[in-house]
């Protein structure tokens, strides 16, 4: 074990593990940053509130309007930002590790595109408008993922084939969205574009609730399965030799990741770039060979929450615009100062 790792071992119960100092530190720092951004998000706004008043409102004490602002508006918004970031960051890490391709974010391989088409179709055609944006987005994402997996299946799948099929599907969905947008009335187009860059403006508990449940279920599942991620990262043959059931493992991991992406997209739209950038940011900060799961989630949360804080200062701009503007330079900065040339998976 390397010098920057600490191991621990208990005899009874037989629990043991290795703590790597740098990834752990990165994780803690990112989590603290996310928490700080969350707290700031709770206090600032049109009605600035001190920490005391926020806390009082949270336990249903103090001023009535404080309670409304904090509990009904700010808490769901900040929580959704946090959860969307975690969901996208982690899902991105899973996708990039399983396909062994740093470009294989859910935005690239079609899942976000499918969700987008469903929602834009709903807005423009009025199809299934009764279902609401959220359900449509969720359905779109999940159905697209199933279609991609089914099309990539031929005596098993490979990460490579999933990526290629995903590109094809993504292409169709993007075109369909473009078609719908060009056919739409201008105000419909504006509404659709507002959604499809990712938006936290009108988030309420209706969006935050389901996402909270999904994240609470899927994140632990993903973490428990992360052992498979470590072997799959070595390639299918080696993973199989090490006793990983390659096909089921990949399916379950991708399902969990797709679930995270679909619920996140349903709540806030396909917030641009987070799923691609957060794992790369976390990986480069932690200097690990694969994107670290928890740190990727934390990095996603930091990016989304900080972007949302900025977005609130610029009236009319949704959070997805800021994530791109903020995340891209940061990723570029990390890229240019990376001491080693490569940067796989």
């Amino acid at each position, binding site marked *: 074990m390397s010098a920057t790792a600490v191991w621990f071992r208990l005899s009874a119960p037989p629990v043991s593990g290795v703590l790597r100092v740098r990834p752990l530190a990165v994780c803690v720092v990112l989590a603290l940053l996310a928490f700080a951004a969350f707290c700031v998000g709770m206090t600032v706004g049109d009605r600035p509130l001190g920490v005391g008043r926020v806390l009082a409102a949270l336990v249903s004490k103090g001023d009535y309007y404080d309670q409304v602002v904090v509990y009904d508006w700010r808490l769901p918004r900040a929580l959704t930002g946090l959860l969307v970031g975690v969901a996208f960051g982690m899902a991105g890490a899973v996708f990039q590790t399983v396909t062994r391709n740093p470009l294989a974010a859910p935005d690239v391989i079609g899942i976000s595109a499918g969700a987008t088409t469903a929602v834009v179709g709903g807005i423009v055609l009025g199809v299934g408008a009764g279902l609401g944006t959220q359900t449509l987005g969720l359905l779109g994402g999940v159905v697209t993922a199933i279609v991609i997996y089914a099309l990539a299946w031929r005596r098993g799948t490979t990460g490579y084939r999933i990526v290629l099929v995903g*590109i094809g599907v993504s292409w169709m969905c993007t075109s369909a969205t473009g078609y719908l947008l060009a056919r739409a009335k201008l105000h419909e187009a504006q509404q659709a574009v507002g959604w499809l860059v990712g938006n936290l403006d009108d988030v309420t508990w209706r969006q935050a609730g389901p996402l909270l449940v999904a994240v609470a279920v899927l994140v632990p599942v993903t973490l428990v399965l992360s052992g498979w991620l470590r072997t799959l990262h070595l390639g299918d043959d080696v993973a199989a030799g090490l006793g990983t059931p390659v096909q089921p493992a990949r399916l379950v991991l991708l399902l969990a990741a797709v679930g995270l992406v679909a619920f996140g997209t349903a709540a806030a739209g396909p917030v641009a770039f987070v799923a691609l950038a957060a794992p790369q940011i976390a990986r480069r900060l932690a200097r690990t060979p694969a994107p670290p799961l928890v740190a990727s989630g934390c990095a996603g949360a930091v990016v989304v929450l900080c972007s949302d804080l900025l977005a609130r200062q610029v009236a009319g701009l949704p959070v997805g615009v800021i*994530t791109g503007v903020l995340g891209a*330079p940061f990723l570029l900065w990390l890229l240019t100062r990376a001491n080693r040339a*490569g940067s796989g998976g």
Partner: protein
Amino acid sequence: MVTGMRTRLLIASVGALVVLCLLSLALGTRTVPPGDVLSALLRRGPSDVEALVWGARLPRTLLGLLVGVALGLAGAIMQALTRNPLGDPGLLGISSGAAFGIVVAVAATGMASLYGYLAVAFAGALAASVVVYLLGSIGRGGATPVKLALAGVAITALLTSLTSGISLLDPAALNRYRFWAAGSLAGQDSGVVVRVLPFVLAGVVLALACAPALNSLALGDDVATALGRRVGLVRLRGAAAVTLLTGSAVAVVGPIVFVGLVVPHVARAVTGPDHRKLLPFSMVLAPILLLAADIVGRLVARPGETEVGIVVAFVGAPFFIALVRRRRLAEL
């Protein structure tokens, strides 16, 4: 695959392309007898048909050809440069740069001229790809494939975000942007062809000159160096070709760069990895796809039209998926 078979396939493809060009002149939302089209081409037909053929269908067909050639070549080169099957010609940030150029021009100056859009889109594409290349080259090892790709993705995200932001704040910009983004060959005139042609030609020459060097590059940077290639220079030339080709294409028809992603995969199934064969094949197959899609788009939604970008997606994507399923595609 046998060489003779490959040659025959190439000849057949060229034949198909010629037929498609003729069909593209003859077919459209307005039905014109083929004889009239022919005499109009020779400047001897009825004046309204002559105006239709020379003013709309001929430039449109030529643009389809040019854009197809450009995207097919650019895609093949991009995949060779990045050694990544996801390497589409938009990877250097070209599409997003063009979109950004259009949106900024409309929002800032209220621009409303066809040639104006062409110029700003091309300028945006050029600027974006230069920035991506420079950013991807900083640091040890120069412009490695992964660094280039990630820099491209980052800049694309940045520009896309800015584009969405501006178009959300300015409805006029959104309006122009969404029609450009659907991808159409219609509504262009011969002036566009003349303005784009030099850039495409320069790109084609540059691209074809790269082919042998790309073969060496496919074996890895070290082997390419051992074979006497100056890897950095090859990449720079390839990137310049991609920029010229894709920039012109995107400026004309919008972001239908996926053509450039799919066609080389199809061509590779025929030619194998040799770029001296792959590039010409991509150059022929891509305009076939584009022109066929354009013709279908004119016919399916009569009297209206469906944009070529959308038809290409719905024709090309299933084909691409079928190919991915059927073959063990060569990993790059």
